[in-house]
């Protein structure tokens, strides 16, 4: 059995930190090899070394047994290595085809032969079952399709070894299923895959072997069939991890959020929320399940005042908050953990400390008569950072420099601390490792038990099933079903989300 890729004793340093220290990774021909580790363990760094974006300080890389120097992505391409990055490397304003051919365009008399390129894209997408619209602009297509474009990009360049960096973090369950199918097709076609994921279930499902790294050091490689999720988790974290979050049955009280006949349009004036009705009671977690793009984002934006309500009513504790400004909504008692933490949740160039008072800076004690009181602000920030275990060099560090997990913990700390009546949590654990997820889940349940209403939006069925006391399924802009987690299965939920109880999932 030969190795297609061997990374031997790799060391990669960043100023002040050793991201990879003596890591060895050996990938066999035709296998799906998992790379597992906590946030910041050094997985992406290792893969960027393999892809030629970073140069290692030490170590050797062999491709098909031959020692190579991968100085830049071009070299990696030539060696048949392709990478699907954690953050997509797609140009928003370009079409699918343009993105795929970028850098190695077919030419005709000095111009880009776009016709030929589109044909080639069609052909590849047929071959591997990667449905894309070659002429669509990236910004107009779903995240799932964007990912397929990323995969096509590597295949177009003739990649034999594909690296997937957290491909499932941004996908809906349906899309994850499709992706797993695609990976199997790729293996059948003779490719090898390195898969980075925090989801142990996926590793168990598709991977042959798994290499674990912890804090930049290689822990070892295990045969997946010979292990179980618990073992993997403890290898990764270095301690025992509990999975399903323990919680008492909910004790719902009065109605906190009541939505009646809500209609919302998106930026292009398309109706996204249509006649939606929903109630969330104090002391319960309502999970909002649904495939991305069924109006969930618009619903949340409408509740929080970020988007105009077309018609209908949103009531909080019996008072209308319809079309109030975000500030008034916040002050009325709503906290919002936004889906896109970089875009909405944080001012990345502010110190983390100042980010902790993003909605409350104008209140005492953080300011008085319009003048900021930094001492109070930073005292508050320090307390929150401690309580929520946000790992940062100091409160004065810019938010930008924190890892995603720690940024998320900071946001949750800030939002929960305001003692709101309603917490809206949109994908609060996206891209986080199991340790961080565990922590955040515990916090949300704690808040529920304190009598707050929680509206949880998630594309992870696991999370919905584990956390919710009641599940509202959203499809086509309205709530099509409400179920209790104990009365349903993931299967049934999947069907509901696809808009049909009868048909098999995937038929949309």
């Amino acid at each position: 059995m030969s190795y297609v890729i061997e990374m031997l004793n790799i060391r990669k340093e960043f100023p002040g930190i050793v991201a990879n220290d003596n890591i060895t990774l050996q990938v066999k021909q035709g296998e799906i090899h998992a790379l597992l580790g906590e946030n910041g363990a050094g997985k992406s760094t290792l893969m960027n070394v393999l892809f030629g974006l970073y140069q290692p300080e030490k170590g050797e890389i062999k491709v098909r047994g031959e020692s190579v120097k991968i100085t830049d992505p071009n070299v990696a391409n030539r060696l048949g290595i392709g990478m699907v990055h954690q953050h997509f490397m797609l140009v928003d304003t370009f079409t699918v085809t343009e993105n795929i051919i970028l850098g190695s365009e077919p030419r005709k008399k000095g111009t880009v032969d776009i016709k030929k390129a589109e044909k080639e894209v069609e052909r590849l997408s047929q071959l591997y079952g990667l449905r894309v619209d070659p002429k669509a602009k990236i910004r107009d297509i779903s995240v799932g399709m964007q990912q397929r474009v990323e995969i096509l990009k590597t295949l177009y360049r003739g990649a034999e070894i594909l690296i997937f960096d957290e491909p499932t973090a941004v996908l809906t369950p349906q899309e994850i299923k499709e992706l797993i199918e695609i990976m199997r097709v790729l293996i059948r076609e003779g490719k090898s895959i390195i898969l980075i994921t925090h989801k142990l279930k996926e590793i168990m499902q598709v991977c042959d072997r798994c290499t674990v790294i912890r804090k930049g050091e290689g822990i070892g490689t295990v045969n997946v069939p010979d292990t179980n999720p618990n073992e993997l988790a403890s290898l990764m974290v270095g301690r025992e991890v509990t999975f399903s979050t323990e919680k008492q049955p909910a004790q719902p009280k009065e109605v906190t959020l009541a939505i009646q006949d809500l209609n919302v349009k998106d930026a292009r004036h398309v109706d996204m929320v249509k006649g939606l009705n929903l109630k969330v009671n104090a002391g319960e977690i309502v999970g909002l399940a649904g495939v991305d793009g069924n109006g969930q984002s618009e619903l949340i934006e409408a509740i929080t005042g970020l988007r105009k309500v077309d018609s209908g009513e949103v009531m909080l504790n019996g008072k209308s908050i319809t079309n109030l400004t975000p500030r008034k909504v916040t002050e009325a008692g709503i906290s919002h953990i936004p889906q896109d933490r970089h875009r909405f949740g944080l001012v990345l160039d502010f110190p983390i400390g100042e980010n902790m008072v993003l909605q409350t800076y104008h209140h005492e004690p953080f300011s008085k008569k319009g003048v900021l009181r930094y001492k109070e602000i930073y005292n508050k920030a320090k307390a929150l950072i401690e309580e929520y275990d946000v790992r940062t060099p100091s409160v004065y560090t810019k938010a930008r420099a924190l890892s995603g997990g720690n940024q998320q913990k900071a946001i949750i700390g800030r939002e929960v601390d305001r003692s709101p009546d309603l917490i809206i949590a949109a994908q609060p654990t996206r891209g986080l490792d199991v340790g961080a997820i565990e922590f955040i889940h515990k916090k949300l349940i704690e808040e529920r038990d304190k009598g707050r209403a929680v509206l949880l939006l998630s594309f992870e069925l696991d999370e919905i099933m584990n956390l919710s006391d009641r599940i509202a399924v959203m499809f086509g802009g309205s709530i099509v079903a409400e179920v209790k987690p104990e009365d349903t299965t993931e299967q049934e939920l999947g069907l509901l989300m696809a808009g049909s109880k009868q048909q098999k999932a995937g038929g949309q």
Partner: protein
Amino acid sequence: MFSNRLVNILIPLISVFLGLLVGAFIMLGFGYNPLTGYLSLWEGAFGDSYFFGETLRQVTPYILSGLAVAFAFRTGLFNIGVEGQVIMGWLASVWVGLAIDAPMIIHLPLAILAAALAGAAWGFLPGLLKAKLGVHEVIVTIMMNYIALYTSNALVRNVISDGQDRTERIPETASLTSEWLAALTQYSRLHYGLLIALFAAAIMWFILNQTTRGYELRSVGFNQDASRYAGMNVGRNIILSMVISGAFAGLAGAMEGIGTFGYQSVKGGFTNIGFDGIAVALLGGNAAVGVVLAAILFGTLKVGALNMPTSAGVPTELVDIVIAMIIFFVASSYMIRWFLLKMKKEGK
């Protein structure tokens, strides 16, 4: 060997040094004696109390126009319209100076206020268009510069004076000039405006760093979406930012109108106070203290340069080259930082 703080102080100093060095090489290359050249520059700026006074006078509007550009920058806006706002502030201060008859305690503040308001008004429109329609502030402010120039000329000629090329001189009651400062500096035109400029720098620092309003302005400058999410009114902050920036620029105009000159004239072209303000702001890292220091450097070089052709035969333009190089080196601080880091490593 070098702490981070030290590096931050060293970079501008090294940049100034390198800029002067380039200037020296150019002088050498064209057969001038750099020492004589720079000595005459020094003499021209600080040679005696008169020149010192004049240098400070020149620094005054630079501080304010620099603050104007910096304030907008800090809130994510590029105000190229400071030039036009300066002209309008200049005009307004003189107009109020001439139109009103009042004791100094009312008249002078009124004239200053008018300048700030006029500048603010000139900044308001680009701010409004940006906030409401998303129109790029760079184009609008460029256009507003020309409109200011021609409007001011027409008003001076047809409204404020009757058909003259410049207005009357403003009365003492509206003037920033100071017998005392003039006497102290052998009749330089140094005026009380310097105190206003320094005060304005303190105000800018205070607004941006110490108030909730400043918190909002900075936040909007960095991330509009997050600011909206946090309940801030993004549009209002954009407008406010341009208005405050314009007010600083208007004050810079007042420094000229009721400080240095005492009148407004029909202008054949721009004053360049606003355009130079861009360089001052950027050189000063868009921070209040930095702007003051950069304005001092700028004023010194500009005033000192006037002496170079007379006493060293070097064309004044040499100073423009030196200024350009200093800006260039400050901008390229990454290179200097990298170099210092390397020295640090080797030093160990």
